[in-house]
């Protein structure tokens, strides 16, 4: 009976992940993939592939202008996002509850003229941007939420 319960729970968990992949929803940084309330309409994006890696899954969300990849831990928490495209995705959407501290740190960061990249480190998250016109790239992650054994370089 105990074994059956485990299987049920496992299936429940798996199906939740599958639902998240198939649904019209995506997660914001630090939020649970199950409790997502924002939909992809905010990014005008469509569901892309979901790929499994050691310790996490990556869900792609694609709009005509930008491809976003969400890094989701085995426990269903989004610990990183990465993007590339013609535009930067709406970070207010992607950073979720961290958006305010990002904006505040960004506001306090002096302009580095002549640069084509940016690194913002707040109390809780790191946001990095690089690239150039027609190929703007970047990533954001919560260092404390990166699963054990997963390298920050895998968020790309």
């Amino acid at each position, binding site marked *: 009976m105990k074994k059956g319960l485990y*299987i*049920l729970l496992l*299936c*429940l968990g*798996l*199906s*939740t992940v*599958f*639902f998240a*992949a*198939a*649904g019209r*929803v995506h997660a914001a940084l630090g939020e649970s993939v199950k409790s*997502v*309330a924002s*939909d992809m309409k905010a990014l*005008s994006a469509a*569901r892309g*592939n*979901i790929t499994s890696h050691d310790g996490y899954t990556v869900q792609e969300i694609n*709009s*005509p*202008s*930008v491809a976003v990849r969400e890094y989701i831990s085995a426990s269903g928490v989004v610990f990183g996002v990465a993007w590339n495209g*013609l*535009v*930067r995705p*709406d970070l*207010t959407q992607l950073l979720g509850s961290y958006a305010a501290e990002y904006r505040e740190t*960004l506001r306090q960061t*002096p*302009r*580095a*003229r*002549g*640069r*084509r*990249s*940016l690194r*913002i480190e707040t109390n809780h998250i790191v946001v*990095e*941007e*690089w*690239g*150039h*016109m*027609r*190929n*703007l*790239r*970047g990533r954001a992650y919560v260092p404390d939420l990166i699963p054990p054994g997963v390298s920050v370089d895998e968020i*790309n």
Partner: protein
Amino acid sequence: MKSTRPFLVFLILVLAAGCGGGSGGGSSSGTSGSSNADNIVSITVNGSLCSGGSYPNKPCVSVKVCAPGASSCQTVNDILLDTGSYGLRIFKQALNVSLEQVTGGSGSLAECIQYADGSSDWGPVQTAGVILGNEPAVQVPIQVIDSTFGTAPRGCQNADKSPADAGFNGILGVGFFVQDCGSVCASNADNGIYYVCSGSTCSGTEVTLSSQVQNPAALLPQDNNGVIVQLPGIPANGSASVTGDLVLGIGTRSNNAPSDVSTYGADQFGDIVTNFNGVSYISFIDTGTNGLFFPSPSASQLPDCPFPDSDWFCPQSTVSLSATTQGASGSPGGVVPFEIGNFDSLISSSNHIFDNIGGNQRGEFAWGLPFFLGRTVYIGMEGKSSSLGSGPFWAY
């Protein structure tokens, strides 16, 4: 989403019960000139074409901008020469000629351009007669940078307000693409770049390629297959200012015939490959980036400078390094030696141009202005060819 939760729970239960996996499921005008000098645009790195107090390694040109019909023209200095972008953008504050607003539907076309340093430019798209060197004027849509135009979209909430914000009067993007956006903006209204504004209301719009902001160098009647950036070499401790040339056209006249260079084809995004320290990086070559930016091989070899210059490297003594650049398709490969000096020491002199400053940056190898010092760099326009091959490419 709250109202759909019962359905969500039901669906999860159904899926769990079966334990079934869901399936993841421009046009030109005038006649071409014939004098050799006509296709030369002077560059000063810092120096007379830049505004006072410019940041290090800033390449400037002047551009002549005319009202359509060339009834009135104006020469604008302190325009950043940028091989990493496409099209001309000038701050409204620096313009005193009236340009022709490009329409989109029943409104005015505007655009939001974002840069990888987190900055952005917002403003209307207007047609100007743009004169590069002594070339014939090209009638081309440009962006008039104006953060007060209509209502800036969310992607341009932090748009530059003035030349002082940005550090220049405008940007001349002469990289190898013709439009700043391209086909995506021609077929999707929700592209995040182009908007149509009526009064203060702006909404996303599709824009034909010919109405998009375009690279004036690609629209020249004769010298339209690429550009050449020529800057002199400088001493290891830097220079106060240097002058060079932006030559329009590749092999279209006697003064722009290429020789002794390798051609590195770029991919659809405008990138090549640089192999450095055993790693293969996405890479680009950009006059608009003022240093060499790449992942530090080690903090002991290339440490960051102390705050507030921690974007830059401050090794105790100058470090000699080398990388291999490759075309996007994998060939050819060419060794590029370079040096990184101590930014804080170099910058403390009265010099403003350095071929050996750089900083730590993840994810890519950005060959900024130092790459161009002492080199002749050919930039081949997409869809055009020359004896160096078909664009987009860099050759050096």
